[in-house]
């Protein structure tokens, strides 16, 4: 099925892979923001995950260990952020920026020896006859395990936030930290956990970028994916399934843009490369225009420092 030089089935099949890094990072950030903390360091955590995962996978020859290391690196950086904002009560916006600047620098430093190296390949899951189903087989059953893991994680986050006691506490902390504190919940501990989870997912997303999507290490390779993840959380009005929708929408645009470049349209490459960023802005504007008149979707304590005075 080819429309205007673009194969629709290939496009849809690549969409899921292209969306996965951003989907993972956005799902993690959703949990962090639901606990009332705005972590603008997603970009820094992603790129640290990318380089740490890459280095570990190359050193051990195991992509699984690489993904694990990526998640650990992201979680460590998030814990640093948590210590500064929750224990030392620093400004969340400034600290998030610091995290991104620091992560970009440190990843470049670590990654020096890895440029041009090829990582061990991540196998696609063998679904047997399922992959041979026309159209659907290629779209749904032709991916590696991280793609399916990211979908499971969205479902888990949705379920935990909606239907479990832990999710309720997390949301309570995010809506009113003073009330949650008065009820005896440990606000700071909950936020530490939420941030570490968010960091681990951002790191995992970064590792997917360097191990599967590209697959190699280049300096600054996340190229704003972390910021797009932040925008997707806003776009999704802090709801997990809408994060999925948003991430696939952006993944689709990225995939389409790459295919247009490959199809040899007369649009300059650099103009096409702007598309994901411009569309992010457009979507943000539309969303904020709608929400002006509707309910405030953001957690009420988002971005505020918590200091138990008694």
């Amino acid at each position, binding site marked *: 099925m080819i429309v205007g030089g673009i194969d629709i089935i290939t496009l849809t099949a690549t969409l899921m892979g292209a969306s996965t890094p951003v989907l993972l990072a956005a799902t993690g950030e959703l949990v962090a923001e639901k606990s009332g903390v705005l972590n*603008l360091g997603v970009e820094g955590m992603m790129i640290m995950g990318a380089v740490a995962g890459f280095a570990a996978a190359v050193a051990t020859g195991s992509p699984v260990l690489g993904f694990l290391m990526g998640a650990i690196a992201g979680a460590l950086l998030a814990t*640093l952020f948590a210590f*500064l904002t929750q224990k*030392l*009560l*620093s*400004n969340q*916006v*400034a*600290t998030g*920026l*610091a995290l991104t*600047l*620091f*992560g*970009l*620098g*440190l990843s*470049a*430093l670590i990654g*020096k020896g890895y440029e041009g190296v090829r990582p061990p390949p991540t196998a696609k899951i063998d679904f047997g006859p399922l992959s041979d189903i026309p159209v659907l087989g290629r779209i749904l059953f032709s991916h590696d395990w991280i793609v399916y893991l990211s979908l499971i994680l969205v479902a888990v986050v949705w379920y935990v936030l909606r239907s479990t006691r832990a999710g309720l506490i997390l949301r309570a902390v995010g809506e009113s930290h003073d009330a949650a504190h008065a009820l005896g919940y440990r606000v700071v501990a909950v936020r530490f956990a939420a941030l570490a989870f968010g960091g681990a997912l951002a790191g995992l997303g970064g590792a997917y970028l360097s191990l599967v999507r590209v697959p190699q290490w280049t*300096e600054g390779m996340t*190229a*704003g994916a972390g*910021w*797009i993840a*932040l*925008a997707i959380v*806003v776009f999704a009005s802090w709801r997990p399934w809408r994060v999925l929708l948003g991430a696939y929408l952006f993944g689709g645009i990225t995939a389409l843009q790459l295919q247009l470049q490959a199809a040899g349209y007369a649009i*300059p490459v*650099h*103009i096409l*490369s*702007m598309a994901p*960023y*411009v569309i*992010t*802005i457009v979507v*943000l*504007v539309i969303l*904020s*225009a709608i*929400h*002006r008149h509707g309910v405030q979707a953001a957690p009420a304590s988002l971005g505020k420092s918590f*200091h138990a*005075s*008694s």
Partner: protein
Amino acid sequence: MITLVRRPTPSQFWSYATPLLAVIATMIAGGILFAILGKHPVEAIRVIFWDPLFGGNASYFRGQLLVKAGPLILIACGLAVGFRAGIWNIGAEGQYIMGALFSAWLALKMYPAESHWLFPAMIVLGALGGFLWAMIPAVLKVLFGTSEILVSLMLVYVAENLLAYMAFGPLKNPEGFGFPGSRNLQDYPSAFNHELIEGTGMHWGVVAALIAVIFSYGLMHRHITGFRIRVAGEAPRAARFAGVIPARLVMLGLGMGGAFAGLAGMFEVSGPSGQITDSFNVGYGFTAIIVAFLGRLHPIGILLAGLLMALTYIGGDMAQLMLGLPSAAIQVFQGMLLFFLLAFDVLTNFRIRFGRVAA
């Protein structure tokens, strides 16, 4: 057990002391980092912080200090106005690029005509380019309440792609033998932002940075507008009762940041850099954020912080040359500085108490 007790008012002493403390802590942590990289830590710190100022070839490097500090101070002064008002313009890098593109476009259109009016016109266009680019998040924030953080940052990537497009396309040097990049403005007398005093690195951009320091000191600390900005940042509700119009502050905060960043881009492209290439921007717009915070959002502080940050750039280059220290190490160093600063800031607003405090 350690507990924090909020101070009734922020400590004056600590607000001056924390930047110094942060610099010292960064030097120690940086030394550890350099040791891990297999360099002698004291040696590396000396090469970065001492040699460019007082070492063998210091006379050359002292000039470079002003070249690097100029744009950092200029951008940070503009950003500080926004940050004081609680407006987070983190897209200065993009505004810097747009200032350079606007002014270079004019110069390249006029080439090779000589005129005394060209350079002033480029200054105006540079400021305008940055200002207009910053107006996008400002207008969207005012009209729709869209997050200026995300929009201004996204626009950095748009600007970077536009820059690359211009360098490879419309602004490419027709006599450049196919190499990407525009004509070099250093070879175009009317557009060249030359050194004012030979060998000092002093060019019009540095003069503009000094004017920006004085101007923003007057605005923020001697004028009612500055008072309003600070009230709006610290107590938005009180500011509204006092008749401060938030929309105007958003426009002012982002607009000044954008115009100053655009100016910095203009002075850079017409002087030290000389041409539009796809690697024209080197992150001044992001480093300026660190400069603004390190300078406590105060113009005089920014002046000092800008010089210090410029020193780390030059010292970093030297350390790369002499010790083989990777250039990214300096980026890490700058990131750590901001971390330590934010961490030590707790001392400004809180007292540390050891042992249990009766509630």
